[in-house]
């Protein structure tokens, strides 16, 4: 993702702060594209916010995580 894409996306992400969502599916990533390898391992999640769904990275967590 280049800097302009990051700036446009970051404006949107703030609206999800504090929201609760249902995890529809999740994958723990062990291999990533070149611009994300420094963040490995990270989770890639698909979340249901009731009125909409979003996909997110869950970075900087421990390997043995669980979702409640």
């Amino acid at each position, binding site marked *: *993702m280049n800097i302009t894409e990051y700036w446009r996306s970051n404006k949107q992400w703030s609206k999800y702060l504090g929201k609760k969502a249902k995890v*529809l*599916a999740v994958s*723990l990533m062990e*291999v990533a594209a070149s611009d994300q390898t420094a963040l490995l391992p*990270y989770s890639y999640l698909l979340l249901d916010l009731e009125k909409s769904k*979003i*996909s997110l990275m869950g970075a900087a967590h421990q390997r043995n995580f669980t979702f409640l």
Partner: protein
Amino acid sequence: MNIKVIGNYIGKFAELWEQSLTDLIKEGVEGVLADAQIDPKSIDAIFVANKASGSFNNQRHLGALVSEQFAHFPPAMRIEGACASGGLAMLAAEQALLSGVYKTVLVLGVEKMTDVSGSETAAILATAASREKEYGSTFPALYAILANYHMNKYGTTREQLSSVVVKNHLHAFDNPKAQFHKKFTLEDVANSAMVASPLRLLDCSPISDGVAAVILSSKPSSRKAKILGFGHGQDTLALADRQDLGRLAATEKAAKQAFLMAKLSQTDIQVAEVHDCFSIAEILAVEDLGFFAKGKAAAAIAKGKATYGGQIVINPSGGLKACGHPVGATGVKQIAFLANLIEKGKFERVLAHNVGGSGATAAVNILGI
């Protein structure tokens, strides 16, 4: 419809470090012309399937690069639809022939992927996902989401995913052009390195270089393989916008159109090349194409119903998984491989299924005698 496949050629799929993008194009053009045994001047137009030569090889404008292989410079255009580029180039060529503007056209698919590093390749391939909505995703990640959903909803198991891989690698032994001729066990797949859970290294199709080409013609020909029907489906680019993660609606739409045009049903099809970029992708494909009921394909494949002697033969070439997946070439390779099976008299009703992205685009072709 009167369109026949009058020539087919598949180059070796592999890491072809000795060959450039242009070398592959030349090989494809010469190979398919030799098979068709026609005057090169009879090619009225060219449709080139390629996903990302601008990124992999710093070379765009592929239409001109293929056209200049001919003395008469036929009109040429490049078609891009991610991994479905080959299937879409087929559809564009078929529509051009049906319009009557052209009588004989070349469809050439090519991708030269191994000149960049693995992580660069992953980044280039990920550009087929939604850049605004799927940050952090890779293709394995998106199909891992689909796999997790399928496993939770239908009870699909690790062993069943592995059975797709084992089957397709066995099939590839009969295909000399396949990238891999190596037998794997269920345990090999289950113990391979994790890429994006639950998908492991051996669940994933490889990075490949390769070329494939077919010549289609509406002129009378003694060749056997005929296009009976085709279809094209689209869905949302981002998984988050999908209505149902348990199916690929684009595949369902494309299949419905193709079967309607061909006036055939699923039980008429003897063999299919389907888009198994990941093990879960084959399971989704054969369900969405209607060969197996939703939620039942994984068990059926594990029980041997998708190989010789079963209900239908799925991916006799080895599929993307074992034959290889030079992205732009894949959809054309499926047609070339199936047309060759028909020419040899092995099958009479066959289907090709090519998917772009994580299911946003799908192309289906049905061939027969």
